[in-house]
C-alpha cells in the first residue's frame, strides 16, 4: 500500500491519507454508536430504540447529524471565545493522531511511523509506535481542560477539573499495562508487537501464536479498565455526571461543537479498541494455522485487504465489552475513582511488570 502511495505526488497521497483517516475514524464510530449506543442499550432496557428513520432506525445517525448541524452554535457571554471554539478540535485532534498510527495490514498503515523490516531490509522493528500512541492519548486532556475553563461556567470548570484528574490518574496504569506487553514483545513498534504475537509460542504450541491476552491477561484487564476511565464511560463518567454537573465540560456546547465532542468520545473508544486489539489480540494478523491452511505468509499482500476486516471484528468485540460494562454498572464516587487508580491499579500493574520481566529472563 505504501509503495502504491509512493508513486503518486505528495499532495495526492496526503489527500488520500486525509480521506482514509476520516473514514477510519468516522465509519467505525457510526457503526458502534448505532450497534451499541442505539440498539444494544435499548435491548438491555427492554425497548427497541430508534425504529422510524430507515429500516430498524439505521438512518438515525444522519437524523442526529442533521439535527446537530442545524442547531444554533451558542457561546456563553463571559466565555473565552477563541479557546472555547478551539477545544473540540483539540479533543478530536488526539483521536485522529492516535488513529494515524494504527496498522491495518503489513503495509496498510496511514503513516510510515513503524518501519516494516520486510520492506526496508533491516530486519528490525525500530518504530516507537507504542510510545507515540501513549503520548498522544494525553492530548485530549488539554482540550477537555480548555473546554472546562473557557466556558466560564461552574459546571464546566468542575467537569474539566474532574476529567483532568481522572485522565492523569488512569494514564499511568494504561502506560504501565502496556509496558508488560512491550517487555514481552521486546519492541516498541506496533507492527513488531503484532509479529511477535504471531510468531510467539505458548509452551511450544504455536498454532494460535501467542496473543498477549493469554499471557498478559492482568495487563489486558488493567488496560481495559484504564481505557474505560480514559474515555469517561460509566462507571468512570464523573466528568460528565449529569446528575451532579449537568454535562461537565460539555455543558455550554451546542450544535456542531457538541457533535464534535460526541464524535471524539465514541471515535476514541474505537481507536482505543483498535489499539487494544493490536497490543493484546494480535492486531490484523489471524492465527498461524489459518494462514498455513491458506498457504500464505503474514507479509502477503492479501493480508492488506484481510487485515482491516480482522481489525474491525476484533474492535467490535472489544467495544462490545466496553459498552456492556458501560450500560451495566452505576457510577463511582469521585474519591473511589482516585483510590481505585492509585491504590489498586497502579500497584497491580507494577507487580505485573516485575513478574513479566522476571519471566522474560527465565524463559
Amino acid at each position, binding site marked *: 500500500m505504501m509503495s502504491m502511495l509512493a508513486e503518486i505526488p505528495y499532495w495526492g497521497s496526503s489527500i488520500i491519507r486525509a480521506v482514509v483517516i476520516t473514514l477510519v475514524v468516522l465509519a467505525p464510530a457510526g457503526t458502534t454508536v448505532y450497534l451499541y449506543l442505539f440498539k*444494544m442499550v*435499548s*435491548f*438491555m*432496557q*427492554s*425497548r*427497541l430504540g430508534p*425504529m422510524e428513520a430507515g429500516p430498524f432506525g439505521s438512518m438515525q445517525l444522519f437524523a442526529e447529524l442533521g439535527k446537530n448541524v442545524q442547531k444554533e452554535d451558542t457561546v456563553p457571554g463571559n466565555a473565552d471565545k477563541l479557546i472555547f471554539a478551539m477545544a473540540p478540535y483539540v479533543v478530536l485532534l488526539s483521536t485522529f493522531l492516535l488513529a494515524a498510527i494504527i496498522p491495518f495490514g503489513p503495509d496498510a498503515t496511514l503513516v510510515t511511523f513503524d518501519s516494516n523490516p520486510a520492506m526496508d531490509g533491516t530486519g528490525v522493528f525500530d518504530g516507537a509506535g507504542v510510545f507515540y500512541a501513549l503520548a498522544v492519548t494525553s492530548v485530549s486532556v488539554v482540550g477537555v481542560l480548555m473546554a472546562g475553563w473557557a466556558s466560564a461556567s461552574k459546571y464546566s470548570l468542575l467537569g474539566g477539573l474532574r476529567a483532568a484528574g481522572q485522565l492523569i490518574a488512569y494514564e499511568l496504569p494504561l502506560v504501565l499495562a502496556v509496558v508488560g506487553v512491550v517487555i514481552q514483545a521486546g519492541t516498541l513498534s506496533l507492527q513488531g508487537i503484532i509479529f511477535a504475537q504471531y510468531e510467539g509460542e505458548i509452551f511450544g504450541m504455536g498454532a494460535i501464536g501467542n496473543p498477549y491476552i493469554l499471557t498478559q491477561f492482568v495487563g489486558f484487564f488493567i488496560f481495559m479498565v484504564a481505557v474505560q476511565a480514559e474515555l469517561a464511560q460509566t462507571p468512570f463518567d464523573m466528568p460528565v455526571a449529569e446528575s451532579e454537573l449537568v454535562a461537565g465540560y460539555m455543558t455550554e456546547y451546542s450544535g456542531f461543537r457538541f457533535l464534535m465532542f460526541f464524535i471524539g468520545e465514541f471515535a476514541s473508544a474505537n481507536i482505543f479498541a483498535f489499539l487494544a486489539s493490536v497490543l493484546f489480540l494480535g492486531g490484523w494478523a489471524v492465527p498461524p494455522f489459518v494462514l498455513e491452511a491458506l498457504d500464505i505468509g503474514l507479509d502477503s499482500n492479501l493480508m492488506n485487504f484481510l487485515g482491516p476486516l480482522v481489525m474491525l471484528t476484533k474492535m467490535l468485540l472489544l467495544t462490545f465489552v466496553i459498552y*456492556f*460494562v458501560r*450500560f*451495566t*454498572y452505576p457510577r463511582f464516587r469521585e474519591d473511589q475513582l482516585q483510590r481505585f487508580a492509585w491504590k489498586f491499579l497502579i500497584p497491580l500493574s507494577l507487580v505485573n511488570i516485575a513478574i513479566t520481566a522476571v519471566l522474560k529472563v527465565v524463559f
Partner: protein
Amino acid sequence: MGLVPGLVKGLGVTAKALVKTVTQGAETVQYPHVKEDPVPRARGVIALHQDNCTSCMLCVRECPDWCIYIEGHKELAPPRRAGGKPRSVNKLDRFDIDYSLCMYCGICVEVCPFEALFWTPEYEYSEIKIADLLHDKSKLSQWMETVPDFESYEAGAEVKQKKVPR
C-alpha cells in the same frame, strides 16, 4: 459475596434483558403505530353531562388552578304533570375547561353533587395552538361517548351500583 461476584451478576442481568428483548420483543409499544389500551379509570380528559349540571359553581370554586368557567341562567320548562306549576331548569350558557391549565387532580369530578362530570381515558387531544385546549360545553359533552361504565362493586356491596348517564 456469594458464589458469583455481584459485578458478574450485574452483567448477567443486562445480558438476560438483551436476550429477552431480542427473542420475545420489548416491553414498550411503538406508539403512533400501536396504541396501548389505557386502563378504565385512567385520567385522560373530563366529560360533561349537560343535563345534570345546575351551575352550582362548586367545581369552579374547588378547582385549584381555576380552569373551569361557568355561566348559566334559569328557564321555565313545562310542568311534569298536567295542571302543575312550570318547572325552573338550569341552562348552561358556557361551560369551559381550560386543559392548558388543568392538572388532572379530579377534584371537580369528586365534588360534583349531581353527577355531571366524568373521567374518560381518552388522551389524544393535543393541539397546535394552546388556545384550542380550551374545551367548550359541546366538546366536553362529546367526550361523554367515551366514558366507560363504572366498574362493578365487590359481591355483597350494600351501595347501589352507579350508572353513567347516556
